[in-house]
């Protein structure tokens, strides 16, 4: 099969829409355009039925007991805001302390920072070099004022998958609400809010081949019943937790996207892991001093993150960007010049944090694409190393740490 350019290998920033999802959405823009909260005519009933079906489809892939536990939002960022701020406000009298990790995505960290300015206390638990957070570290951070533990299921840059069930058990034992940020994981790896003890689960449609502009927050109704204060007041939609006219076509697409993920997950994750492993082997066996970031096994099947010593990440991307879309770090932080805080938090040197490249595969990634991207990456890194004064010094046997660099 002929390659089609540009190749998209940045699927942890967003995913291409699945045509089956688009097909499911279309009628809800035109003939089924009703307002899901219109109770007195068939247009409303039809729209509500579409939303209810999507709620069931989503509830099913996360193992929720009751579709009513799904609250639709505008996306992952809003779900995370609603979960953390909603709990913080609702349980203010019980306590003011939140436990989270240093490698959460920007949305979570920024919400926590805002809460800190409003009298809350947040402990950012460090992670191991492979990206895993130690259960004992979370346990130690807990105080009698802790009201929430918030941890991402899988990391957006290095793909490391946390032991969510263990954190869920700990939270239950201590009677603390547990929010899992599942934006990168829902639909990709098996998740079950019941067996994993998750009280709140954030997710988004656009990372599972659905539309942008819609997400969901799972809010546990039983054992314990979790209450959250809304961010948006209004008509009391979504059981009062998120007012606003529901974007029915987006929600229908989200539901269909979740349903498809549930159906193909086992086969798809095995296929992507195989392609990812091929890409990893190709690069690591052809480039010296290239380092895998994150956990070698406990990671998302479609994620590969590598640091190339002596070359800067953006320059690698520039060599590939005419034909391949990749990213160094997350799209959320790529407007800044800072090196990846995630790679930094894993204990890598700042230099290696400047050199990380994330390859993320998706449903439509082909073997030919992987071969091409692998070969081109190797070429570009080698070319840049020929231009790198650091590589030259290292080859001469100079210890780069022995040089007194004049930092700006």
């Amino acid at each position, binding site marked *: 099969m002929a390659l089609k350019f540009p190749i998209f290998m940045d699927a942890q920033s967003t995913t291409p829409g699945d045509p089956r999802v688009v097909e499911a959405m279309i009628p809800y823009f035109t003939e089924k355009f009703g307002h899901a909260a219109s109770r007195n005519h068939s247009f409303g009933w039809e729209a509500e039925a579409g939303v209810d079906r999507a709620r069931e489809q989503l509830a099913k892939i996360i193992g929720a007991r009751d579709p009513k536990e799904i609250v639709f939002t505008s996306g992952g960022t809003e779900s995370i805001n609603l979960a953390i701020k909603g709990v913080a406000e609702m349980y203010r009298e019980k306590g003011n302390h939140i436990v989270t990790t240093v490698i959460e995505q920007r949305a979570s960290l920024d919400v926590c920072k805002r809460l800190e300015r409003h009298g809350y206390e947040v402990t950012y638990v460090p992670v191991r070099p492979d990206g895993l957070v130690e259960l004992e570290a979370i346990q130690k951070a807990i105080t009698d004022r802790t009201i929430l533990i918030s941890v991402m299921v899988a990391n957006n840059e290095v793909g490391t998958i946390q032991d969510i069930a263990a954190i869920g058990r700990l939270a239950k034992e201590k009677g603390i609400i547990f929010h899992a940020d599942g934006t990168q994981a829902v639909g990709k790896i098996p998740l079950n809010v019941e067996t994993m003890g998750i009280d709140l689960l954030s997710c988004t449609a656009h990372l599972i081949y659905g539309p942008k502009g819609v997400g969901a927050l799972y809010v546990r109704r039983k054992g314990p019943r979790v209450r959250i204060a809304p961010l948006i007041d209004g008509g009391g939609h979504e059981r009062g937790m998120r007012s606003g006219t529901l974007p029915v076509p987006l929600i229908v697409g989200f539901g269909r996207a979740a349903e498809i993920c549930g159906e193909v997950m086992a086969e798809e994750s095995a296929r992507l892991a195989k392609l990812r492993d091929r890409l990893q082997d190709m690069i690591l066996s052809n480039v010296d001093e290239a380092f895998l970031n994150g956990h070698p096994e406990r990671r998302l099947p479609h994620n590969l993150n590598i640091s190339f010593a002596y*070359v800067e990440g953006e*320059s690698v991307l*520039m060599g590939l960007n005419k034909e391949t879309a990749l990213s160094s770090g997350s799209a959320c932080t790529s407007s800044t010049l800072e*090196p990846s805080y995630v790679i930094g938090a894993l204990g890598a040197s700042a230099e290696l944090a400047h050199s990380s490249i994330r390859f993320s595969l998706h449903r439509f990634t082909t073997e030919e694409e992987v071969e091409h991207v692998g070969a081109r990456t190797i070429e570009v890194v080698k070319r840049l190393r020929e*231009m790198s004064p650091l590589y*030259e010094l290292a080859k001469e046997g100079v210890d780069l740490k022995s040089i007194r*660099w*004049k930092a*700006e």
Partner: protein
Amino acid sequence: MAYSEKVVDHYNNPRNVGSFAKDTPGLGTGLVGAPECGDVMKLQIKVNLDTGVIEDAKFKTFGCGSAIASSSLATEWLKGKTVDEASKIKNTDIVNELKLPPVKIHCSVLAEDAIKAALADYREKHAAADAEAST
């Protein structure tokens, strides 16, 4: 961020990449930046000791495309200039030529630093050689 055509051209076809042998006569070397900041430039000039004209220049850069382009451009501009003329190259000249966006201005600053460092290194060595010759 979209790059200007000139940045892309220098990135794809960098001028004067490389290093001079350490015992090259009239050599001046500047090494600026820091790995942890994501930019390191090594810029070298080879000065004709009779005329004081920079006959050749080479660079190696660890950094983004704009950093590579800034140092590549610097080597082009240095060739044929006298040491005194070369010291008048300003980072703003590089910004204008490459149409660097505000977030990339530090690349041009680093290139200017690299030029200054190479000139200073040359002057230092040259002065020492002169002093030796006169004794």
